[in-house]
């Protein structure tokens, strides 16, 4: 036992690796399920070689007694079932001299690249021990060994194996449990074999599933989509659940169809959502623009992967922010949100869906592979803040009644098309003013089936009825309304997750530090902040959940009088640029931006803070020697 693996008060990172068919991923899944049973928190990422199926793979888990937000700086324990193609994973397996490697001496010597880490090495004859059991498998012996090393009980491991292998024949499950037990150090203490019951309600799910759950919570009843990695699992999670709640999922012929299907369903009054990734998002931009212009609510979850083009389908990067913010032609204001962790995928997707409904617009939710395909044990995510639903005709009438006198721009609900001849065609007589200008920019929306409120939705520039018009005043009014309804909405506090620690003040004459980030980078940033505070640095974190519309005033207030570092995983500093474009950053703000596909590690941020703002008392934190993450590009403030 190394220092790190024997201290169970701190999170521990465990990796299980093996060649195709070795079952490294199943082993990881059992460990995570066992952690849930032992009242731990945790998360599990995976990496695999290029083979479509069945190549070498690694499960990397981090397990701890408090919520685990990121994968940490290094691997504490590596259980290598064999060494086949392990060099493919060196970047993902940062080991150092405090790490422990469990390996099967029968599968050959430790490769130099791994041995170079200086990690402690311990031989365990996984395969040989497995052979002792009928149908025994080496990976399950490793589950026993690794599970005990990180403090999981034998009972929890056995139960977890039963759950994960529920579809297998009972003999297989028994053999598995026997192997786990064989790997588990003897004698197992009584406590370790007592039946488990987690003290607290705790969930195990992926970010993709959480996003799906958020959609259901928000009332989404229609999904249309086209498969794409790494978004498919979100759809595959949703399909059977929608069956259960009476909703529909349509597998479309392509993404162009999918996004237009959403617009149709939503026009019909049914909240609608899709999930995709970069290439699919590109194909959807025209349809998203239609939703914006026709004011039909839809939600598009982008589970981002590395780019550009087909890019890195199974790896993560935060490089679709530019497209999500700016990717529509013409002026097309819309919502952009990003979940901050696995559980937050539920919160943010729910909130985004509710906001889209209320504001009659498109919402893009920027998840990514690192959230979507990570499975985690977490506290159940909170419900999103309440948002009123679509403005239907009765609400609109109620709003208008008391205030007709006072409010600018409130024309009759059954309005006219404006001055004669300004609309393209002849003026309305009694038709419904679907796009009526109102005080909050939100027009009443009828849905098919409602008599007397028929209208034709349109993506052409139009007047208040929806009739196409190229009149300048109509165009200006439409654009102003699209922008104002978004900027005028009160989003409350949920726009960001903020943490100032206990002691966020000036200290020894130096200003406190603001770490600004978004999306999946939050986990590493918050851990970096924690460690900085331990070293006596005053630091706050601001993780943006609502990216557009940006909360300018709140941001400026939050950043006032601090050193600012913007952290994200992409090559060009997309958030950094965006915040400058919106003029909320001080000119001396700095950027830490580096491309994927490697997960962000807290040490990278610590090092960047030290280099850029370096209070002398700050310890240098070595990123593990073999991590390839060092060559990030840093953009200084230059204006």
């Amino acid at each position, binding site marked *: 036992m190394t220092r790190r693996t024997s201290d169970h008060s701190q999170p521990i990172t465990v990796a299980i690796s093996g060649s195709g068919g070795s079952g490294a991923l199943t082993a990881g899944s059992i460990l995570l399920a066992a952690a849930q049973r032992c009242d731990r928190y945790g998360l599990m990422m995976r990496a695999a070689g290029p083979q479509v199926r069945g190549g070498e793979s690694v499960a990397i888990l981090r397990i701890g007694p408090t919520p685990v937000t990121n994968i940490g700086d290094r691997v504490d324990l590596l259980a290598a079932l064999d060494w086949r193609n392990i060099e493919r994973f060196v970047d993902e397996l940062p080991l150092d001299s405090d790490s422990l490697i469990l390996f099967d001496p029968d599968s050959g010597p430790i490769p130099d690249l791994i041995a170079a880490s200086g990690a402690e090495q311990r031989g365990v004859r996984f395969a040989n021990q497995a052979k002792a059991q009928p149908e025994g498998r080496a990976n399950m012996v490793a589950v026993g060994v690794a599970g005990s090393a990180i403090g999981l009980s034998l009972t929890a491991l056995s139960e977890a194996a039963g759950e994960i292998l529920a579809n297998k024949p009972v003999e297989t499950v028994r053999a598995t449990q026997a192997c786990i037990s064989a790997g588990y150090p003897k004698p197992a203490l009584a406590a370790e074999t007592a039946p488990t019951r987690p003290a607290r309600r705790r969930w195990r799910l992926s970010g993709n599933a959480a996003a799906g759950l958020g959609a259901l919570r928000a009332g989404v009843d229609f999904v249309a989509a086209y498969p794409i990695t790494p978004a498919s699992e979100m759809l595959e999670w949703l399909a059977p659940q929608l069956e259960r709640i009476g909703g529909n999922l349509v597998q479309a012929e392509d993404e*162009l*169809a999918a996004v*237009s299907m959403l617009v149709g369903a939503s026009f*019909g*009054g049914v909240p609608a959502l899709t999930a995709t990734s970069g290439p699919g998002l590109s194909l959807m931009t025209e349809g998203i623009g239609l939703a914006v212009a026709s004011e039909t609510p839809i939600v598009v979850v982008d589970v981002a992967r590395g780019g550009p083009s087909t890019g890195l389908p199974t790896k993560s990067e935060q490089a679709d922010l530019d497209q999500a913010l700016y990717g529509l032609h013409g002026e097309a204001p819309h919502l952009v949100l990003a979940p901050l962790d696995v559980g937050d995928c539920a919160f943010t997707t729910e909130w985004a869906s509710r906001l889209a409904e209320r504001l009659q617009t498109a919402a893009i939710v920027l998840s990514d592979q690192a959230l979507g395909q990570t499975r985690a044990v977490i506290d159940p995510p909170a419900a999103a803040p309440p948002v009123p639903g679509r403005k239907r005709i009765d609400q609109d009438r109620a709003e208008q009644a008391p205030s007709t006198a006072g409010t600018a721009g409130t024309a009759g609900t059954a309005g006219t098309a404006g001055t004669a001849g300004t609309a393209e065609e002849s003026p309305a007589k009694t*038709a419904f003013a679907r796009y009526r200008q109102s005080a909050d920019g939100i027009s009443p929306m009828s849905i098919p089936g409602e008599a007397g409120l*028929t209208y*034709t*939705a349109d993506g052409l520039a139009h007047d208040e009825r929806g009739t196409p018009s190229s009149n300048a005043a109509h165009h200006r009014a439409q654009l102003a309304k699209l922008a104002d309804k978004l900027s005028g909405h009160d989003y409350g506090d949920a726009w960001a997750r903020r943490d100032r620690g206990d002691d966020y003040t000036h200290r020894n004459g130096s200003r406190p530090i603001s770490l600004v980030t978004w999306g999946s980078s939050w986990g590493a940033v918050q851990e970096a902040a924690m460690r900085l505070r331990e070293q006596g640095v005053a630091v706050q974190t601001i993780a943006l959940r609502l990216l557009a519309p940006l909360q300018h005033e709140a941001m400026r207030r939050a950043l006032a009088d601090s050193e600012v570092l913007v952290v994200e995983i992409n090559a060009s500093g997309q958030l950094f640029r965006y915040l400058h474009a919106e003029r909320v950053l001080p000119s001396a703000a700095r950027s830490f931006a580096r491309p994927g596909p490697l997960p962000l590690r807290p040490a990278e941020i610590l090092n960047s803070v030290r280099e850029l703002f370096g209070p002398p008392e700050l310890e240098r934190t070595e990123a593990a020697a073999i991590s390839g993450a060092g060559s990030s590009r840093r953009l200084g403030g230059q204006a």
Partner: protein
Amino acid sequence: MSATTTPTLRARDYLSDIKPIWCPGCGHFGVLSALTKALAYLERPKEDTAVISGIGCSSRLPAYLDCYGFHGLHGRALPLATGLKVARPDLTVIVAGGDGDGFSIGGNHFLHACRRNIDLCYIVMDNAVYGMTKGQASPTTPPDWTRSPLTPNGPGIPVFRPAAIALAAGAGFIARGFSGDPHGLSELIARAILHPGFAFVHVLSPCRTFRPDDQSDWKQGVHPFTDRARCDAEAVPALRVDDDGMGIGVLHEADPKAHSGPKDTLADADRAAAIDRIEAELEV
């Protein structure tokens, strides 16, 4: 959702007060008129009818009706309508557009709508040209038509055969009409609406401005279609080889298979309970 008692509507009651932007003599007027006749004949409540279109002269049609409508994206009328119909099976959903919209940029959705067999009535107003963008060749433009500067030697490609494609793709109802015969056309549209599943109505609808000869050529050329397309679900279907593209009538009508009716939507409370169950499964 429909109102309790709707007074009987005449065809013109389905028209909105918006004046079409079409050129005088445009074939699309005939389609508009035929559609209102069909709706009146079927006594569809206006508010339970939605007309979905793409972009093009033809696709301007929804605004000229006093039903719900969506003038969507070029080429994407069918998926928009599919989403609407799946989400709202109680509505009558009609899809309208042009030959460019439906067969060029929208060709893939046409194929897959035929296969998917959602209960839509799809009316393509085929004028063998892109009217709205001022006269370029469409998939149904003859290969030797040299009047577009974009294809100075003519498109040079055999015409797209909508009915044959629809049949090969599995459409259950295929008809061809002529906008110069709004009466006959309204009957075909009515039958298409009644067909439980995807129904395709191919309408010869001449563009007065960019293909001025079609009006009279087609008036001369159309004739009743006499034989039905054979369609064997296990095999590859065939239209009679003597379809010359001018045969008017129902070209193919499959056994109207019982469509799985609309799903039961759950009451809000039941939905919430179902979500609770889903969440409970995330615990151990």
